[in-house]
């Protein structure tokens, strides 16, 4: 049945609410004005220039990119074998382990951040790289395991069994056959883990210090204190990185394959 005009109107309102902030951020990042005035008094790239000239924010961007890369690698290294075990092996307590690995997603990030602060501060690990890496790896891990469990599950068991019958040990079969076939899923999982870490704000707020801060935290602090279009340019930079990562995955493996739909 074709949608009626009432449905179209209401759906338009819904989409307007969903997309308005992103569109406005994009426009206002090119504002020539001094404040978050909309419509902007004129257009320029002055706030992008200001962003690139801002040493503090650029350093935070670099730190966030490094942190997110390290987290993606760790989450994959820990998540791949765990996902393989959950998808392929039978062992007692498998369901309990799967639930434990998904558990961090059930708790509010605010509570996780507080808990990590209380745990890491006495160990002098708050506001340190190891502390941030541990915290971000913990929140990224469930995503990596979930995607990879699906990806490994989509590799037919018979293919792995065929490798065994041809003389491959279970370890070699997993590394030579199952892992390469599930590689698009691993690429998607790595990209998602990167983004989870790169955009993570709340937990980081508890764990950063004056000398070690991430870009989302810097942006949060900036919005708390000032309202000029620099922060819109910064928001665009974050969106740009997210988009670049998504496109990279698409380019490398194709989205449908990455999501295991091919």
């Amino acid at each position, binding site marked *: 049945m074709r949608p009626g005009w009432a449905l*179209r109107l209401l759906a338009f309102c819904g989409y307007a609410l969903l997309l308005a902030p992103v569109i406005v951020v994009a426009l206002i990042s090119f504002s020539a004005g001094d404040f978050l005035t909309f419509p902007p008094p004129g257009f320029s790239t002055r706030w992008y220039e200001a962003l690139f000239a801002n040493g503090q924010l650029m350093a935070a961007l670099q730190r966030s990119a490094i942190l997110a890369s390290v987290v993606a690698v760790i989450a994959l290294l820990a998540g791949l074998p765990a996902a393989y075990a959950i998808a392929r*092996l039978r062992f007692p307590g498998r369901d309990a382990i799967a639930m434990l690995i998904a558990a961090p997603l059930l708790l509010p990030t605010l509570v996780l951040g*507080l*808990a990590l602060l209380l*745990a890491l501060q006495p160990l002098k690990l708050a506001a340190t790289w190891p502390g941030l890496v541990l915290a971000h790896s913990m929140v990224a891990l469930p995503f990596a395991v979930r995607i990879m469990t699906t990806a490994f599950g989509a590799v037919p068991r018979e293919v792995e069994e065929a490798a065994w019958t041809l003389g491959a040990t279970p370890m070699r079969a997993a590394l030579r056959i199952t892992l390469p076939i599930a590689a698009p899923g691993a690429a998607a999982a790595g990209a998602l883990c990167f983004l989870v870490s790169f955009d993570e704000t709340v937990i980081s707020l508890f764990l950063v210090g004056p000398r070690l801060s991430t870009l989302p935290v810097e*942006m949060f602090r900036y919005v708390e204190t000032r309202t000029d279009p620099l922060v819109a340019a910064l928001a665009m930079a974050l969106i740009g990185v997210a988009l670049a990562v998504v496109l990279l995955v698409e380019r490398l493996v194709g989205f449908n394959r990455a999501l295991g739909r091919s």
Partner: protein
Amino acid sequence: MSAALLLLPAVLILAAGFLYPVALLGRISLNRTSDIGAMEPDLTLATFEKVVGDDFTWELAWNTATLAAGSALAATALALPVVLLIRAAPPRWRGLLSLMAIAPLLVSGTARIVGWLAILGDQGLINAMLEGLGLTSEPVRLINNWTGVRIGLTESLMPYACLVLIAGLGRLDPRLEEAAATLGATRTKTFLRVTLPLAAPALLAAFLLTFVLGVSAFITPRLMGGGRVFVVATEIFDLALETVDWPAAAALAMLLLGALAVALVLRTALMRSARA
């Protein structure tokens, strides 16, 4: 290949980064804060008593619950026409329309709040329109108050509502509505008598999920409220980092977790009865 060995790295990360911290959170909620504000190791419910006995806590709880309920309701109600449109759209449009509905999830929450500040601020889009139309002479305050927080939270919850509804309504056969139409029902009647009752379980699921997410939301209340809006999440943050009263922060966090656990149990029970 041993399963234990394969699971070891993941379990180590979770033990160090999740189980130990959360257990410690529970332990610290049983400590006490001395009169000079230092934490004293103890095994007492005194902090819980202090938090629960404080009228401010109940005000926060009420604020949080009403904010989350209102925003979750609005997000679910606004997501419904979006998802119905996706469902009725030609197949080649469906992918793009779905992507547009959940795309905001890929954009950091803070970035979207910058957009709302530009739309709702004193010099923002809405006020410019209102003044341009001659409806107001003074800017209407839409940020740094509850109005701004409600709008921002509704928007940030909508993609989740869309996800739940897309999954829930996708299973619904569109021919049912066509059947109603052939039997003489108008669009409105079809919606009220066929679509809405069939969509009810999905709507309930969407509301409950967004409610739970809304209860623990922090970034939106903090930034859209401009420090003038207080909910449980902002209070936990302030207790931990401004007041540095760890036992109180931990106790409030434990109470929040308890409330979420109750909500989760209620949700499971409600979903089961809705499906039956």
